[in-house]
């Protein structure tokens, strides 16, 4: 379904624990068609500090009988945009663009699915879990966070999961540690065939590595900075390994794919994870040259990657 701009109404505003706000929105046309892993791009109201929309994953979709389904997003307070959203009341109007992006692919045959989430990044797993269960797949869960307070709505996941392992960095709930500490064992114990992961990039990178070692298909939903959210600005790109078969450029190559339209869900095995600020250099060198990244780095008067700006 192609995206549209909708004046959505706030249907409910809940809090999960200390940290998370959930807004359910009546967004005609969006609720009925959205897929797990897709997102919406939200205008948070006039503000001096920013001009752009803010992207949020679909956390859940609620069927409302004959009325349009409501979509729910969940978020933590980061900056001015989420602060403004947190001040929204029932019946307020929010300008929403969506549904956006390509969601998770659902197994064609019954499969044992493992959902892996970190912090508020776990949001899309709830909608995904609902869908997988409806389609009859087995679901297991590994959910992690800083502490018990930041475990996003673990109750709901526990209800849908056969196995649900929690981790917290401070040990305040579940095992002390990170999701990746329990991931391999959970996969082995559950006989996992497909992994779905959402959360911060370093977590996704580690999950993808473990899955690749185990040769288990892994889909990751990434969060990149987005200026437009619908594919025109090229700010949100992720470097992906691609296999090309055509002519001269055949063989392995690297492309920058748009997270907002070609993602946010990617095959975890294709993503080239950044190490710190910039992407792994040996992979970068396979990017086709241009006025941008790579060449500028070779110029003596500009530090690597710090060439003259180019739009």
């Amino acid at each position: 379904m192609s995206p549209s701009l909708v004046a959505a109404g706030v249907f409910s505003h809940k809090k999960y624990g200390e940290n998370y706000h959930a807004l359910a929105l009546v967004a005609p046309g969006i609720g009925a068609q959205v897929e797990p892993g897709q997102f919406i791009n939200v205008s948070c109201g006039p503000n001096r500090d920013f001009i752009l929309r803010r992207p949020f994953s679909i956390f859940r979709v609620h069927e409302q009988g004959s009325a349009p389904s409501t979509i729910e997003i969940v978020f933590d307070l980061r900056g001015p945009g989420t602060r403004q959203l947190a001040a929204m009341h029932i019946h307020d109007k929010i300008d929403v663009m969506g549904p956006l992006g390509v969601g998770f692919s659902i197994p064609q045959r019954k499969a044992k699915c493992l959902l892996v989430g970190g912090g508020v990044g776990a949001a899309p797993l709830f909608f995904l879990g609902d869908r997988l269960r409806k389609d009859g797949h087995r679901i297991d869960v590994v959910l992690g966070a800083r502490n018990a307070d930041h475990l996003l709505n673990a109750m709901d996941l526990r209800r849908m999961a056969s196995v649900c392992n929690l981790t917290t960095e401070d040990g305040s709930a579940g095992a002390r540690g990170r999701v990746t500490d329990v991931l391999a064992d959970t996969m082995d114990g559950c006989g996992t065939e497909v992994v779905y992961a959402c959360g911060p990039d370093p977590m996704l990178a580690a999950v993808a590595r473990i899955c690749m070692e185990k040769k288990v298909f892994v889909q990751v939903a990434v969060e990149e900075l987005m200026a437009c959210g619908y594919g025109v600005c090229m700010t949100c790109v992720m470097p992906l390994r691609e296999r090309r078969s055509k002519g001269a450029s055949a063989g392995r190559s690297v492309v920058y794919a748009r997270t907002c339209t070609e993602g946010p869900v990617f095959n975890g095995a294709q993503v080239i994870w950044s190490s710190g600020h910039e992407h792994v250099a040996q992979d970068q060198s396979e990017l086709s040259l241009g006025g941008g990244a790579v060449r500028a780095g070779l110029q003596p008067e500009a530090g690597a990657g710090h060439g003259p700006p180019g739009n």
Partner: protein
Amino acid sequence: MTPDLAVTLAGLRLANPVLAASGTFGAGREAAAFLDLKALGGVIVKSMTLTPWSGKPTPRMCETPSGMLNAIGIQNKGVEHFLAEDLPWLSAQDATVVASIAGNSVDEFVKVAHRIEAANTSLAAVELNISCPNLEDRNHIFAHSASATAEVVRSVKAVLRSKPVFAKLSPNVTSIPLIAESALEAGADGLSLINTVFGMAVDVSTRRPKLAGGMGGLSGPAIRPIAVRAVHEVHRLWPHVPIIGQGGVQTATDALELIMAGASAVAVGTANFVDPGACPKVAGGIRDYMAAGGVGDVAELVGCLKLEG
């Protein structure tokens, strides 16, 4: 009386004076989900290069007060892709299309221009994005040098004979009129003013630049006063040169500032990110202004700024 919004800039005919700015509208495909591309004065597509360019590492953008910084590095699939895939599709939508060319050497500009000329398409005009580093001149930006600007324009005009050519100038210079003069002498049919303003932002918690590329280009409402000034400076010296004004246009009032300062048309950039339908809304607002004030032809407003008491 229905106001007439049609304008012609050096042979570039637009149904209304509001275009989408290069790099903020792709090649129109994604925005077409939200609006009819015929409702735009025109689409200036993302700058294209001779070969595909992958662009810069991420993060490529950050927000700043009333604006944003970007360092995309002109990620694009190259001129062949444009001619084979984007242009036929755009033509099928009846869109008015302006190509934007970028390159790291005069030769690259010329080769792209050559391909465009040879393809002999329905393309309405060409914009030269000369805010690129010139690898043959120690990475200096073409648009920062009067001679490099002239060389690109002259060389492109020599091969691209069938389309009006607009040189898109950078505001990051001591004298925009000086660069404009050399672009015009070299044969530019019109000018696009302005490209982004160089800037930088620092994440004080990580002590790193917010953009992987360090510096970036500032766009959005914050730079509108700079764009209005640039258009005014050039228009008062060459009142007959058609100018596509751009920089910070969000509303019809913003567009009218540029038009009154001397722009015959405007391009909307960053505002498309927030609202893909921004261009027709701006055009509609200009129509309302004209209707309310009894202005029959938008050309009456171009450069109508009164300077004296």
